């Protein structure tokens, strides 16, 4: 029973042991195992021993049961035994606990040590890495490690004090056995103790050995380090530590071309040079001093790595004592980002600017549109007003010619002058708006400056009501004919002259014309303010395109009206004309042309001074002089009238034509208005005047006389004569006016030394309305020129009832058209014009001529009729280069040309073909151009090539029998002495072109000779 109990207990023990042992780590060492196994084994042995002992005394068993059953002792013995066992067990537990305590102490110790190590490690980390790296990985390792190494032995001592004595208590045997047993136990105990000691020793040794796991730790460290390196190496940052003196103590990811030793121990400034280095150094110092971390963007520009921007973070590092021992520094290159950012900013800025501009532009556009609309409206309105107004004015004029009593006449005159004024104002406005809106087109036509000057003066003189001398000087160097927009030039001149007259009360008013060297750079005469007034007398400005292009408007064209409206309210003569009619008139009065000058086309700058001895312009008024609606002063406007548009228009016109206008003035002494304009000098004029087929040869004769006079004289003067008396005598009114006009008329005529002759072509004046072609004619400057004068004659006709006028009076438009052509006044040019006009007349009458756009037409109308096909042109030239150039130029002009290389070939070519134009080099091998020309001319005259045969040129083919036409032959000269122009003409050439041939020269030549 006891055994069973024992064994049950032992089982329990075993169970316990098992449980306990399961608590041991797997790798329990040998010693421990031994020990553990030892204990139960020992118990069993002891039991066996006891059992054996019991077996040997079977009697004792009986006794025992007796004792158990009957003896108190027995039960107390049992109780004792149990108690004893319990005690022993307790003891064992206590021992075990002690052991456990000691072990756990050891563990604590080791843990402490571990912590120490960790701490040390951490400190190291902090010191060098600056990074408070959590070492969780390391921690775990260590823990595991420690567990392994220091097994806790809780039950390593197990005292089995169980006494199993089968001998009788208190017997010797019993004691002996007991002693024996105790001895054994002691022995076992000693042994155990020893084992334990050894174990302890071993454990301590092991612990000692393993408490400094340098290798493993360093491996772990290495791993961590590698990881750290890996991360750092791939990070786009520079990491460094600098000490108090900002010397690098540590750097990571430094610039590749620098070696560690180049950096460590040095400062930034010692390593790099360039922009930004100093700044970064200063920044670090600042952080060092202030002890507060900071970030900054610094742009470096060093020789080492060029221009780069870094974002730098610097934090101070403190020692344990709290003082700064250096800085940690981290830099990241952000050049690209910065650049992008800057670009962004720039873009944004640009966009903003763009937007602002756009807004501005829109505003401007809006304003401009508004302005344009306003202008357009003004123009339209002016236009609309003008038409009915011209009706009113012309009717008034007709009315003034009827029989009126004095009072009525006075009233009508006031009506007339007021109407005139309004009309003029409107015209001015129209003009201005046209110039400003760029609608105004300039025309290039030939005209004669002397004539223009004369006519302007004549016109002014005709209406002059003051004791003034009008004079004109045209210096000799001014070409006889120039090309420009004569309409506008006249407009300027007339305007200036009438202005001058208006503000001059005595002395003289004059025009001076001379050539200046060069387009002198705009002499801004700071201020020009002449009483800008636009005087009522200005007439030329009324010439507008409208007159020409829209005759239906019945635009009132007033011509050089000279009357001072303000003065007496009387109005001067007026010429009402559909612009077109002038051309007809022009065609009618044909005059001989002066000898052509062989001028090459060039540009001349002609300066025109209009001077007076009038009231002058105050200094302060000059700046605003040319401004619109500006006059010198309010009282000026009152006193002299005018709109203030005249000078503005003049200036704008001058500028439109590429010139400029200035003024100089001295108060009370007079003013001089100057405008300088470029003109093209007209090239060769048509000099073949033989074929004139005009009917009015006699007219032609007289005209030519006049013409010579006109063209050659460079000085004109119109003296006031008896004007004064006339002027002072009668009261105001139309009558006075008329007489004054009559005077003017006389004056002008006398100055020309010719009687007034009116040449009229009534039939043409009618056709002019019908045919569009005639409208073109009116744009010819000459035509307008002509038409612009005859105010005097008109008056004359009105007063005298000249019968010639009646035929031409057209009332259909409500406009009286008076066409008078006094040859002296209309000294228009050129046969060329004559031819052209003749042709036009023919055209309009016959309606069968082909259209021709060319302005310059050959004099020979008959010829021009024929030539509508592509012209045949022959170039005679031996110089290959010239040939090439000329051919190319001709090609651009749309002509293919035949080419031969010398005079003989030229003659042969003419024998073969018929040419419309020959360009002939003068100096050529084999046969020169002069001889060739002579031969060709001889053929043209005689109809045979005998002369050529004489010169050794045989006819190759049967010649096209002389058509009787004369081929224009143009010499190409090198301007050498041997090739003088005279010689060319003498040999039958028509003209010459000097070498080198230019595009312009050729073009003009073709225009002139090729219809």
């Amino acid at each position, binding site marked *: 029973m006891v055994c069973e109990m024992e064994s049950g207990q032992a089982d329990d023990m075993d169970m316990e042991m098992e449980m306990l042992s399961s608590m041991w780590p797997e790798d329990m060492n040998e010693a421990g195992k031994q020990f553990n196994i030892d204990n139960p084994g020992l118990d069993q042995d002891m039991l066996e021993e006891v059992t054996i002992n019991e077996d040997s005394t079977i009697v004792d068993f009986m006794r025992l049961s007796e004792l158990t059953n009957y003896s108190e002792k027995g039960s107390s013995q049992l109780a004792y035994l149990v108690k004893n066992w319990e005690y022993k067990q307790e003891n064992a537990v206590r021992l075990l606990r002690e052991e456990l305590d000691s072990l756990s102490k050891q563990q604590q110790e080791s843990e402490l040590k571990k912590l120490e190590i960790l701490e040390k490690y951490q400190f190291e980390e902090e010191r060098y890495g600056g990074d408070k790296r959590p070492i969780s990985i390391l921690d775990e390792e260590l823990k595991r490690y420690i567990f392994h190494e220091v097994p806790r032995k809780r039950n390593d001592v197990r005292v089995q004090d169980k006494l199993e004595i089968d001998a009788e208590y208190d017997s010797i045997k019993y004691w002996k056995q007991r002693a024996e047993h105790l001895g054994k136990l002691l022995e076992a105990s000693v042994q155990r103790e020893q084992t334990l000691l050894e174990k302890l020793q071993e454990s301590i040794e092991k612990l000692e050995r393993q408490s400094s796991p340098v290798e493993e730790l360093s491996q772990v460290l290495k791993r961590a380090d590698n990881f750290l390196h890996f991360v750092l190496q791939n990070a786009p940052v520079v990491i460094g530590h600098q000490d108090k003196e900002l010397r690098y103590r540590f750097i990571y990811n430094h610039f590749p071309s620098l070696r560690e030793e180049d950096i460590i121990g040095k400062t930034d400034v010692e390593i790099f040079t360039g922009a930004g280095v100093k700044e970064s150094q200063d920044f670090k110092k600042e952080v060092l001093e202030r002890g507060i971390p900071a970030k900054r963007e610094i742009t470096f520009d060093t020789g080492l790595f060029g221009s780069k921007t870094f974002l730098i973070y610097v934090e101070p590092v403190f020692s344990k004592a709290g003082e700064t021992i250096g800085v940690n520094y981290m830099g990241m290159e952000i050049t690209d980002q910065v650049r992008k950012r800057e670009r962004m900013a720039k873009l944004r800025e640009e966009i903003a600017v763009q937007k602002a501009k756009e807004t501005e532009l829109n505003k401007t556009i809006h304003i401009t549109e508004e302005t344009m609309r306003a202008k357009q409206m003004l123009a339209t309105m002016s236009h609309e007003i003008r038409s009915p107004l011209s009706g009113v004015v012309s009717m008034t004029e007709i009315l003034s010619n009827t029989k009126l009593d004095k009072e009525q006449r006075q009233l009508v005159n006031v009506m007339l002058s007021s109407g005139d004024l309004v009309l003029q104002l409107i015209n001015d406005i129209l003009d201005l708006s046209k110039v400003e809106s760029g609608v105004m087109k300039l025309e290039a036509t030939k005209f004669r400056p002397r004539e223009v000057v004369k006519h302007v003066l004549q016109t002014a003189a005709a209406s002059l009501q003051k004791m003034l001398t009008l004079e004109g000087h045209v210096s000799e160097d001014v070409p006889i004919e120039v090309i420009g927009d004569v309409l506008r030039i006249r407009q300027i001149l007339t305007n200036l002259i009438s202005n001058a007259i208006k503000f001059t009360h005595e002395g003289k008013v004059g025009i001076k014309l001379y050539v200046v060297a060069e387009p002198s750079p705009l002499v801004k005469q700071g201020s020009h303010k002449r009483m800008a007034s636009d005087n009522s007398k200005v007439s030329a400005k009324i010439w507008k395109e409208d007159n020409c292009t829209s005759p239906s408007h019945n635009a009132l064209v007033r011509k050089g009206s000279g009357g001072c409206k303000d003065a007496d309210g009387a109005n001067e003569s007026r010429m009402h004309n559909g612009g077109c009619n002038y051309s007809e008139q022009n065609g009618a009065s044909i005059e001989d042309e002066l000898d052509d000058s062989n001028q090459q086309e060039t540009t001349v700058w002609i300066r025109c001074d209009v001077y007076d001895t009038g009231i002058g312009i105050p200094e302060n008024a000059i700046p605003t002089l040319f401004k619109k609606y500006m006059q010198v002063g309010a009282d000026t406007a009152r006193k002299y009238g005018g709109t203030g548009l005249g000078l503005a228009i003049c200036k704008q016109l001058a500028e439109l034509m590429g010139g400029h206008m200035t003024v100089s003035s001295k108060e009370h002494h007079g003013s001089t208005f100057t405008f300088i304009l470029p003109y093209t000098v007209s090239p060769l004029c048509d000099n073949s005047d033989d074929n004139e087929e005009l009917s009015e040869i006699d007219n032609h004769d007289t005209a030519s006389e006049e013409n010579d006079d006109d063209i050659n004289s460079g000085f004109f003067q119109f003296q006031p004569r008896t004007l004064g008396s006339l002027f002072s005598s009668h009261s105001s009114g139309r009558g006075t006016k008329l007489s004054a006009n009559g005077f003017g008329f006389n004056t002008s005529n006398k100055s020309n030394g010719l009687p007034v002759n009116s040449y009229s072509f009534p039939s043409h004046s009618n056709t002019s309305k019908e045919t569009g072609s005639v409208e073109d004619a009116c744009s010819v400057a000459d035509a307008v020129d002509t038409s612009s004068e005859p105010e005097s004659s008109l008056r004359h006709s009105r007063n005298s009832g000249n019968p010639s006028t009646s035929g031409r009076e057209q009332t259909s438009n409500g406009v009286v058209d008076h066409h008078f052509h006094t040859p002296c006044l209309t000294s228009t040019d050129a046969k060329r014009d004559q031819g052209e006009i003749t042709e036009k007349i023919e055209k309009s009458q016959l309606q069968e001529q082909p259209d021709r756009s060319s302005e310059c037409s050959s004099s020979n109308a008959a010829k021009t009729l024929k030539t509508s096909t592509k012209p045949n042109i022959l170039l005679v030239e031996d*110089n290959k*280069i010239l040939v090439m150039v000329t051919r*190319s130029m001709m090609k651009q002009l749309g002509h293919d040309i035949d080419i031969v290389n010398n005079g003989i070939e030229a003659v042969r070519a003419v024998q073969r073909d018929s040419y419309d134009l020959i360009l002939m080099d003068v100096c050529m091998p084999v046969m020169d151009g002069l001889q060739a020309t002579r031969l060709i001319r001889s053929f043209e005259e005689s109809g045979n090539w005998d002369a050529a045969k004489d010169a050794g040129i045989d006819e190759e083919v049967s010649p096209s029998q002389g058509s009787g036409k004369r081929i224009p032959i143009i010499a190409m000269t090198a301007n050498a002495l041997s090739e003088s122009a005279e010689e060319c003409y003498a040999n039958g050439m028509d003209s010459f072109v000097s*070498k080198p041939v230019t*595009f312009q020269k050729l073009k003009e030549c073709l225009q002139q000779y090729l219809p």
Partner: protein
Amino acid sequence: MEVGQLQRSFIEYMSSLFNEGFLDAQFSQLQQLQDESNPDFVVEVVSLFFEDSERLLNDLTMALDQPNVDFKQVDAHVHQLKGSSSSVGAQRVKNCCVPFRSVCEEKNTEACLRCLQQIKQEYLLVKNKLQTLFELEQQIVAAGGAIPMMQ
């Protein structure tokens, strides 16, 4: 070099040629004649001029080398040269022709030789200049740019 730069230097070079009198307005005329249908006109004409001039200068040298100088012949050559040079606008060559013809009229062999020397020099100068100009042109064209027009 980029196109813009080439064009700038072309213009500069051109104006220097005009300013120094090597070329005159006639050359501009030639340039104006050049268009899409005739893209190499200037080069062609100028090449012709080079050929022609070299031949004439050769002839002149030979003619003046003779014991009995045929001044008429010389004068004809000079006249030709004058025509050619004025046609391409080689102003300085042309200008040399004028005194040449007058000394030719005087039958002054010495002076003729001097003039010939001078003409040769001028000719070589302008030839060089023009060739440089054309090279510049080609570079511009190769770079994809347009030949700038001179006013």
